């Protein structure tokens, strides 16, 4: 297959390009004009498509005409709400509109997010799978969740009414070498100090090579068309287990300071009640119960669908993934 990868310059993008190459596909890496193609890709026949998805113009049409699958990874996780909106929602709408206008027929593998689920509406400890209802109030979540929710809606509309074969993957928290710290642990006080909220919360971790493998599988397998898959590694870990690995990678310098989650919850709930009673206070983002619960409630993640439907298994075990992630910093 000839695969166009958007967001190829990003963290996950690099792994997806590698995985597609490993599987013998031709890769067109769509990267912002300011990004260079890594030299190791040049030798492996990767074609660079220098394009910013926010730009209008016919560059995208040409790029699509050349490919039979699109892996849509492009999105932004920081900046102002408007810059996140442009790079996540508007860019996706432009991609989808171009597919419609050109009558493009191929496979679109879209990278969504766990943040599209309505995790405030389900009880703690319950099972989360692809049938869990979507967030009914995305504007009450953070700007990332809001823009990813809107972005997925654009893709689902395409899935519902076009000939494009759409597969949607909703990864949990993607981690790997160079991206070890995760917000589901708590707050990063400094690069070497972690304020861990709670300790017992089950993290929805997904090792980046496993995410890339599932995405490639969704591009290849005919059974993926029209489907949605969650991507969370099996045998999930609790915060303290992951935090211990993070600390042990550099035990002389790194510190994990546990902070009781119930204190955050109690204070946040108190502020919310006071606000409703008319007091001029409201919980700041990190105490807002509506934002706390999706990150720090304990859920069970059922990720059997990808195995059931696609026959796919994550290639990297949890132990191997942790070894790879924490290998670069040692005592």
């Amino acid at each position: 297959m000839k695969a166009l990868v958007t967001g190829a310059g990003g963290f996950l993008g690099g792994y997806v390009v590698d995985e597609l190459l490993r599987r013998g596909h031709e890769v067109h890496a769509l990267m912002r004009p300011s990004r260079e193609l890594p030299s190791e890709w040049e030798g492996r026949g990767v074609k660079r498509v220098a394009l910013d998805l926010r730009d209008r113009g016919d560059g995208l049409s040409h790029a699509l005409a050349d490919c039979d699958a699109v892996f849509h990874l492009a999105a932004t996780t920081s900046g102002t709400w408007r810059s996140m909106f442009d790079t996540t929602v508007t860019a996706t709408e432009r991609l989808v509109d171009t597919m419609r206008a050109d009558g493009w027929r191929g496979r679109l593998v879209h990278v969504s997010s766990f943040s599209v689920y309505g995790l405030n509406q389900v009880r703690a400890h319950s099972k989360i799978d692809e049938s869990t209802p979507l967030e009914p109030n995305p504007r009450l979540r953070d700007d990332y969740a809001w823009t990813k929710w809107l972005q997925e809606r654009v893709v689902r509309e395409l899935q519902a009414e076009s000939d494009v074969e759409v597969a949607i993957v909703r990864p949990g928290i993607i981690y790997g070498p160079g991206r070890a710290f995760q917000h589901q642990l708590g707050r990063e006080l400094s690069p070497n100090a972690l304020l861990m909220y709670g300790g017992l919360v089950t993290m929805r971790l997904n090792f980046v090579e496993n995410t890339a493998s599932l995405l490639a599988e969704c591009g290849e397998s005919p059974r993926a068309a029209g489907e949605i898959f969650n991507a969370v590694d099996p045998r999930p870990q609790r915060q303290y287990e992951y935090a211990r690995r993070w600390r042990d990678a550099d035990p002389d310098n790194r510190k994990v300071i546990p902070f009781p989650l119930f204190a955050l919850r109690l204070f946040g709930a108190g502020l919310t009640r006071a606000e409703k009673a008319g007091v001029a206070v409201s919980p700041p983002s990190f105490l807002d119960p509506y934002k706390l619960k999706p990150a720090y409630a304990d859920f069970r993640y059922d990720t059997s669908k990808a195995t059931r439907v696609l026959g796919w298994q994550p290639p990297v075990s949890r132990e191997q993934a942790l070894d790879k992630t924490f290998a670069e910093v040692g005592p």
Partner: protein
Amino acid sequence: MSSDPGQAPLRAAIVGLGAISFEHIEKLQLLDEVRIAGVCDLDATVTKAVCERYGIGPAFTDFDRMLAEAQPDVVHVLTPPQSHRPLAIAALEAGSHVLVEKPIAPTAEDYAAMRDAARSADRHLVENYNWRQAAVVRRAVELQRSGAIGDVVHVEVVFGGILSGGGGPVSDRDVVHFSHALPGGALQNFASHPVSIALSFMDDVVGVSTMRRRLDPAMQSEDELRALIAGERTSGLVSVTRHAEPPAFLLRVSGTEGAIEADIYNDRLYVAGPGGGLAKVVNGMRQGLNLIGGTAGLFAKTLTSRLDHFEGLENLLEGLYGAVRDGGEPPVTGAEMDAVNDVMFKVFSSEGQL
């Protein structure tokens, strides 16, 4: 604003859904007697999403159509400054009052055209100096005007924590941020805040001397500014800094009988008395207690979301809509805007450059 159930709500319209627009929408939604009657952006996707998010509308992508259909009392012009002039003039000519985001215009000529249009339409034209309207700055101005520090000798304003690198739209290398195309680059996008604060304490300006430079070669325009403003008897020094840490917004007004010091981001203000006698000890103790109390208060405000960096916008909107409803002057006057922009255009022209 006082509540009068007999009157129809004032109609607000917004053009330009950049990052700042959420602040305007959220503050407008706090005002009982104002209704958002139209929202406009060239990008239909973002317009629809924002209207849906806040339950407002209708959404427009055509500004003239919005003016005709929404019939706004006040138009908030929040687009990049290069488009302020035609949008503001069209709104004024349609009979609306206009609030324009800072900087009001890239050039003196654009600004003059907007002021003329406001005068001939007999409508308010207000530039958003929201930090000037923050409670802590208002308190400093009241204290100085009540004679708490005697006559002003010198004002210093340091404005940092802006233009941050990495990830923000100002450092985007692919879709270049509008501010870099201003005659004064990204600095011109921010300098109205400290200049409007400094001038609140000064007498008539007689000269300006500036230093502008780029310390970060990856920035697409200059990132450090010092402007020395000479008044008839007072002086002001305005710094806009990207590189100084920690990010701070500081005001110091030195008078013949004392000084006012304000930490604007952290909502803390302290008045030092004149020297002599036990002044060193008394001033030191007062400053220490102020710092301890202010920091405890800051912590409490952070935990309860009461530290609001757009409180000044709320104050400004209350004043502006009050003036539209009841007559009277809005919180930002034409004379103040003339003075601020006169300094702004001098700072960002080549004259007086060190």
